[in-house]
């Protein structure tokens, strides 16, 4: 029984509303006892809110809400908001990352002020991301993008007595503001050509651009630039290593996993729906080629930059740029009449696995920071003698990010490269596979440092931070379980993506 016949249609956005509501509840709780230094309630509410959003989104996804099998996408506000398999799938990613980040922040924020604001900002950013995934019009895209970005700027600069954090926030904000402007300008150009902001109407009108092809082309490129910023793709990636390194580690996790996925969510939808390949490419605006170039450059540059780092957090930041390159294959390997749904779906599934493994890796770094161990590879030497279980989890993340078999990252990369080959883009898959093999070099450096090198000094780790510990273990279990459970995940993602091309 399709769910929307029983409930009013607005209930389809329940997961997003739950996230927004959590943010408001957090403000409310904070207003009762503003000077509270007991973060348990705040972290609990935040985690609970994201888990409930996760559960509802997952339930909708399983029940088929807004998917082809049960009446197709649910449109609200004249199509400005669309709930379909894709938006729910991405909401699952955002909500699970937000839940892990909330859990981990509990220890990270101990004895800091403005805790309620921290959690609320995380929840608001998650709300924005979730809205991004269900935007049906360029206006909603822009507004939700800003809703996701503005809290992120504040969160990056959250450690306001820390120079690195403030500098990172400023850099992030400035680049973000410029890219927002570029993005808005791109939207206005598209509006000038098509006379509409709704994605479906843009698609219908863009084929008749006539003399305005050049304007449309510039608009599309500018919009692509906006996404490249959000997903930390070359050439708009410069902010990412700085921001990820300077930000509080849980926020680095949040930005590099959820925020990046949000960028892809909206890019997938806008380009697949508003700029159909069959109509746009014959006009001479070959955006898949643009993304192919971006993908190759992004993964190669990210990888090589990661390989030269001495600081683990920076290495992860650059490797996250590299992973943006892999995910870009989901846009780059599209072609008229190709197996587009399966390519894009594979990319979505990769982002889900990435959500677990990358969040886990950054949260592990949060834990190491909490312990007061340094940031370089040498500082990690022999850590496994002190914290074997946590290091085991980190090992899982590293090998999974590198794409080694017994972990989720192997299958998701395999599906991605495989989809590219199916679409005829075997060279894209080859570049991806080579990059992936090279990445083993720097990922295994972390593993080698933790397990094989002898400790250079003695560790004084103190008590295990329970919240981060649990979050890291959850991420590790998720990364492992996503190997056997990859079938339903990728099928869901591919059917959700295929619906976009219908």
């Amino acid at each position, binding site marked *: 029984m399709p769910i929307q016949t029983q409930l009013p249609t607005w209930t389809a956005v329940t997961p997003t509303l739950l996230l927004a509501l959590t943010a408001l509840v957090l403000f409310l709780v904070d207003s009762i006892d503003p000077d509270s230094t007991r973060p348990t309630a705040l972290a609990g509410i935040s985690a609970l809110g994201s888990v409930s959003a996760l559960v509802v989104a997952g339930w909708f996804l399983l029940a088929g809400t807004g998917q082809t099998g049960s009446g197709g996408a649910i449109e609200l506000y004249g199509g400005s908001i669309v709930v379909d398999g894709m938006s729910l799938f991405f909401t699952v990613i955002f909500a699970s990352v937000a839940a892990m980040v909330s859990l981990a922040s509990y220890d990270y924020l101990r004895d800091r002020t403005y805790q309620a604001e921290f959690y609320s900002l995380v929840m608001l950013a998650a709300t924005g991301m979730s809205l991004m995934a269900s935007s049906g019009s360029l206006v909603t895209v822009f507004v939700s993008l800003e809703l996701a970005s503005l809290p992120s700027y504040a969160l990056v600069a959250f450690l306001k007595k820390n120079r690195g954090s403030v500098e990172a926030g400023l850099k992030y904000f400035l680049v973000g503001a410029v890219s927002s402007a570029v993005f808005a300008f791109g939207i206005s150009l598209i509006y000038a050509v098509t006379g509409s902001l709704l994605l479906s109407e843009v698609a219908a009108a863009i084929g008749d651009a006539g003399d305005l092809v050049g304007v449309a082309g510039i608009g599309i490129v500018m919009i692509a630039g906006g996404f490249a910023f959000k997903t930390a793709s070359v050439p708009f990636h410069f902010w990412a290593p700085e921001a990820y390194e300077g930000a509080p580690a849980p926020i680095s996790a949040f930005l590099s996993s959820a925020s990046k996925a949000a960028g892809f969510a909206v890019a997938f939808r806008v380009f697949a729906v508003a700029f159909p390949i069959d109509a746009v490419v014959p006009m001479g605006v070959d955006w898949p080629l643009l993304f192919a170039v971006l993908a190759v450059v992004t993964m190669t540059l990210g990888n090589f930059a990661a390989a030269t780092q001495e600081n683990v957090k920076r290495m992860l930041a650059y490797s996250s740029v590299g992973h943006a390159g892999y995910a870009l294959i989901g846009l780059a390997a599209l072609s008229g009449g190709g*197996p587009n749904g399966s390519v894009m779906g594979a990319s979505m599934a990769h982002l889900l696995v990435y959500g677990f493994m990358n969040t886990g890796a950054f949260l592990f770094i949060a834990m190491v920071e909490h312990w007061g161990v340094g940031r370089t590879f040498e500082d990690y030497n022999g850590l496994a003698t002190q914290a074997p279980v946590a290091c085991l989890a980190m090992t899982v993340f590293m*090998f999974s990010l590198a794409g*080694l*078999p*017994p972990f989720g990252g192997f*299958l998701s990369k395999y*599906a991605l490269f495989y989809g590219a080959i199916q679409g005829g883009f075997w060279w894209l898959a080859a570049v991806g596979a080579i990059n992936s093999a090279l990445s083993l070099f720097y990922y295994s450096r972390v593993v080698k440092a933790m397990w094989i090198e002898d400790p250079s000094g003695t560790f004084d780790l103190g008590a295990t931070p329970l919240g981060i510990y649990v979050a890291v273990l959850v991420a590790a279990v998720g990364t492992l379980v996503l190997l*056997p459970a990859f*079938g339903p995940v*990728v099928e869901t993602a591919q059917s959700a993506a295929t619906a976009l091309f219908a």
Partner: protein
Amino acid sequence: MIIEALIAVTFIAAFVVMLAPDEVAGRLAAALSLLPVVGSLYMWSRFDATGNALMGGDIAFETMVPWLELGGYTLNWHVGVDGIGLPLVVLTTLLSTLAIVSAWTPIDERQSQFYGLMLFMEANLLGVFTALDFFVWFVFWEAVLLPMYFLIGVWGGPRRKYAAIKFFVYTNIASLAMFIGFIALVFGLGDSVSSLDMPAIAAALRAGELGSLYGIPAATLQSVAFIAMFLGFAVKVPIVPFHTWLPDAHVEAPSPVSVMLAGVLLKMGTYALLRFNFTMMPETATAFAVPIALIAVISVIYGAMLALAQQDLKRIVAYSSVSSMGYVILGLVAYTTYGVGGATFQMIAHGLISGLMFMAVGVIYNATHTRMVGDMSGMADRMPVTTGILVAGAFGYMGLPLMAGFAGEFFIFKGAFASTVTAGMPLYTAAAMFGIVIVAGYLLFAMQRTLFGAFRLETDYEVGPAALHETVPLAVLLVTIIVLGVAPDLFFGMIQDAVNPLLDFGGELS
């Protein structure tokens, strides 16, 4: 379901041991590892497969459930054993338990992690020898690397980091080459296969349904894929010139890990060669037969010569593995019942004998803290039982009748001489047989200098007889070697049954 149970029990055991306190980890691991031993012996007693698993034979203990679908290809959880897989499963469980027991003395730090990783590796090895879907198989295949990397890198000797990384990089790149080669074949098969099921792919390939891919004609595609996969597996075997990781890994690895490395991990390479290259693409294999046979002969002779030149007991045994695995390749390329069957039997025999040799060298090292031939002599006076077993094992290596090594090598030579597939096979076989002389040479030479004569030891350690838990695994291995030597048919019957279907292809061969 017994295969699933076997793998699951071993994984759970690995996890339990990982969490156990160090003091009990060794005992606990040994006790838990008896479960897969019992399970594999039960499988052997109830074994009822006929024919080759990849060629339409009846598969024992088979399970096949859909796992996931990717781009039109179904990936199944498909496991089962035939006469080739079962002996290797038994070898894996038996050798793992013995290696774990033999680790009680030398491993004195981070024990729970060590034994946990050993069991984790065992579980994945069981997966490699039972999986019948390429994808499942590949997951297990790669997963074996990770524990080995840590086992060498954490518990190894002075140059352990270098050896671990070298092992990891070599075998990982090899796996990538092999993976690309195989996937190219699958794509080339196009619509004639809809899954990565190994029997289905083997059937399609043997039926000649390979098409062209991206403009590469089918014949070229098959040759290129064959070479890519051959290289991938050759590194694992290893054969000259891809063997250089092996001595490093062996010398640095702690003895129990060397036992697993030589005893089981190397067999992954020859097993995969047999399953993939020689089963799925017999025409290509015969087309490349002469170069492969030459490589095999070079591996035998060169490996033996290298062993002859070593001063380190462990290096001697390590290089002799290169030599022995060369025989296996020679047997495979012969394409006769005795050749391929003997090669499979020799995998088991070499697993047991090299396991015994590494373990015995390990026991001597535990007592003397040196492995250099020049540092000791007359060990027989102080460690008579260990010496006796080591001598017996060396005789097994040399191919003394009534020991497993004799049976394996005899079958291989018999099969290789009779081979009609490869031009000049008797010549190559004769050349390879000369390797036996060198093997006898370096083993007798090393033993004469270390074990016999007047006692002399250039370290400060008092040397006495080995402990019971060091001797028992050696004794068990020796008994197994003799039993298999006296009654090779315990395994050889089922091996032949699984091998025979391979030989008849194209109607050209008998």
